[in-house]
């Protein structure tokens, strides 16, 4: 399993998001390093199909693919299970993607 974490420095919570990802991986006994990618330019965002910070991919697939992807250096809005908007994916969102990577869609 390949887990990637893409982030944009100006979005404040990427450290917390990465920590959350690593914690969930540990809980799920998923070994291996997270590929951490810092996205620094608009061109890089387009090349990497980066829809916002933080983006987590499991085997190349976004854990929460947006319906209308736009590639930009921006913060990303996740809609949580209780319909709240959050700058971070929830632990459950991450956990579901790690348990069932095939059900995600290409990021």
């Amino acid at each position: 399993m390949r887990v990637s974490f893409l982030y944009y420095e100006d979005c404040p919570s990427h450290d917390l998001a990465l920590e959350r990802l690593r914690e969930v991986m540990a809980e799920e006994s998923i070994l291996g390093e997270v590929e951490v990618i810092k996205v620094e330019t608009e061109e890089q965002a387009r090349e990497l199909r980066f829809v916002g910070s933080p983006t987590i991919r499991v085997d190349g697939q976004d854990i929460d693919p947006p319906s209308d992807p736009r590639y930009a250096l921006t913060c990303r809005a996740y809609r949580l299970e209780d319909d709240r908007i959050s700058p971070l994916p929830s632990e459950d969102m991450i956990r579901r993607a790690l348990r069932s990577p095939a059900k995600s869609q290409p990021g």
Partner: protein
Amino acid sequence: MANLKPGDKAIPFVLPGVDDRRHALENYADKEAVAVIFTCNHCPYARAWEDRLIGIQADYASHGVQLVAINANDAKKYPDDSFLRMKERSEKKGFNFPYLYDESQEIARAYGAERTPEIFLFDKGGTLRYHGTVDDNYEDPAAVKAHYLREALEEVLAGREPSTAKTTPVGCTIKWK
């Protein structure tokens, strides 16, 4: 870094609102407190705090408090922050405060605002009493321990200096042209 610190006077502005009227800061001179909030449509931090700001306005309107939201983001790069989308968002969310468009970004630059959301709370005399973030938990309203803006409002309304006059604004960077 903000160009204003607690104790400084508010910087005047006149900006168009989503109600198609022009809003001048001086229009709110009769208010007991005015919170100028730099925010936008697209930023998840701004969106996460929106309902709480609506709640604060509802709770404190009868006490003479006025929130005034300003979007200064570059809508060419971030189309979700266009004036049209501001109108849509205001209507959809039922904003109970003015939502103004700083298209030239002049006001955001004058205030030295850097993030969305970023709060500048002024007392009746137009003196800055609190600058910073809404509270200490953008992700979970139920987990908030420090209600910075609410507490500052209570103290300003009581004629006291806020015990916390400054916090670090948390949110997306303002998208400059």
